[in-house]
């Protein structure tokens, strides 16, 4: 690029970027390091940086006390399931808002977003009671449904912004070519919006994976996901700091890897289609 940026400015920006990145990453780094320490070392008064007695026993202990793989499986089912279900509902909804808007479309979009402004605890009791009566407490189905519902506004908003960028001419051409609504969406809209749909999918898997409030309140043993798994290791005495770290590391590792491999898509997703 032929922009006139002095070397000093470049160095300055680079240092600042690294500093911010390290600052944001430091808690995760601390968790990673602590996971390989003994409990005693983890709570020592003069904290150590690198583990002095490198150990894997925390991971074994964690697996012994609580089944990691079962929770990981639940996390995958709930995050992937709720995202797919959300896309199934969100794609037609976003189609209608982007390509067949009415006077009220903007209001509906704002209303959907406004549900995200309410603290979740505000609807805890009604939802808990509904779940209890429908026997959805501590089931994967129930958790998937609630996760779909809380992420649906974001899914629809993201898809809506992507769909808005697709020229309606092309969809109209499909209609003229004999495509009914289903074919228009499946053969023309979805392939054209695929990058946007992929970003939406990734972001929502991550959001659902990390969701803790509803998971912890609506599940106990059977349907608990990895966030419930972590919380079961937090103890007021702090004697489980190393194990808690090990559990956290195990819980975030899969999603961290997925995020790492899909960085490009994610950046697009988080900028809501602003960058082409």
């Amino acid at each position, binding site marked *: 690029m032929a922009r006139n940026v002095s070397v000093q400015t470049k160095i300055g920006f680079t240092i600042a970027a690294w500093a911010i990145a390290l600052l944001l990453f430091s808690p995760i780094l601390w968790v990673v390091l602590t996971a390989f320490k003994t409990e005693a070392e983890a709570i020592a008064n003069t904290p150590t940086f690198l583990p002095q007695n490198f150990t894997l026993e925390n991971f074994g202990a964690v697996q012994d006390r609580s089944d990691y793989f079962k929770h990981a499986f639940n996390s995958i089912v709930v995050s992937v399931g709720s995202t797919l279900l959300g896309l199934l509902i969100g794609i037609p909804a976003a189609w209608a808002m982007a390509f067949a808007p009415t006077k009220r479309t903007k209001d509906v979009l704002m209303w959907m977003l406004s549900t995200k402004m309410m603290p979740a605890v505000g609807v805890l009791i009604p939802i808990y009671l509904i779940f209890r009566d429908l026997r959805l407490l501590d089931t994967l189905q129930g958790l998937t449904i609630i996760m779909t519902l809380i992420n649906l506004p974001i899914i629809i908003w993201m898809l809506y912004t992507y769909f808005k960028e697709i*020229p309606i*001419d092309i969809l*109209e*051409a*499909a*209609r*003229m*070519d*004999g495509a*009914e609504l289903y074919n228009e969406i499946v053969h023309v809209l979805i392939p054209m919006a695929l990058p946007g749909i992929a970003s939406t999918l990734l972001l929502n898997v991550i959001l659902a994976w990390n969701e803790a409030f509803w998971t912890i309140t609506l599940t106990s043993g059977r349907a608990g996901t990895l966030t419930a798994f972590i919380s079961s290791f937090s103890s007021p005495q702090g004697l489980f700091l190393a194990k808690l770290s090990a559990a956290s590391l195990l819980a975030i590792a899969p999603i961290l890897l997925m995020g790492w491999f899909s960085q490009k898509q994610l950046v697009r997703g988080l900028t809501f289609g602003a960058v082409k």
Partner: protein
Amino acid sequence: MGSISLRNVKKSFGDVQIIPDISLDIKEGEFVVFVGPSGCGKSTLLRLIAGLEDTSSGTILLDGEDMTKAPPARRGLAMVFQSYALYPHMTVRDNIAFPLKMAKASKEEIDRKVEYAARTLNLSSYLDRRPRALSGGQRQRVAIGRAIVREPKAFLFDEPLSNLDAALRVNMRLEITELHQQLKTTMIYVTHDQVEAMTMADRIVVLNAGNVEQFGSPLDLYKKPANRFVAGFIGSPKMNFVDGPEAAKHNAHSIGVRPEHFLLSRENIPGTWKGTVGVAEQLGSDTFLHVHVDGLGLMTIRTDGDQTFSHGDDVYLTPDATRIYRFDAAGLAI
């Protein structure tokens, strides 16, 4: 197959009436052009026929069958868009095959028809490319190929050539006319280029503010314009209009003379209009003289390429008396 009738079709967007009331009969196999100034409702009318917009009231008949409420996919019409509207994620082959796939044609039929369309439109060597790797003219051909494979009842074109450069436009204009002669399918073609309208159409619909000003053959419109609007719109350069006493001499509110219907001289013949040449535009074959006529204003005169008038010369104009168009106060032809 391919007659299109509109009966008292009206269209409003919200409170804004775009098409007050149109009735039209387009015959099977006809090439009809919709012309009119920008914003007069040409595209809207075409989209109503296509089914891409709903009518506010009125009836649309295709081959005598009421299709007013039918979705575009069921109307059996094909459309070529100004933006081409190709499917960017599909190859040229898949673009052309798409309507056939939607019609659930067999694989052999699809292959045969796509090959045929590609050969007709000189696209055979581009079949495996994506639209983004094609030139404007090639893209337009793909759009036409996609329209012809399904053998529609009628083709609808919305300014299909306006994104092409001048030379290519002339070429494509000929190709579309040829295609019409070959297929003999009804075509409706929207343009604001009156040269396209005159050269391609069997009949022209002149639209103004959502109303049909006149519907007739190109020469009809040129020779017998129904009103001042059509007279001014059809023909290039535009007809010259004169109001006041000069018009009263012809028992009219205003009169019109086409640029090609003047005699020029350097001699002061009594009864002629005296003027001074402003700009002389030399086209080689023709020359357009812009003449400031005393008391009547600026007039455009078309004369041959060898004439000798230039800026500042005095000129005496005699309008051809047999070709003066007369209009009443409401602008209707008398």
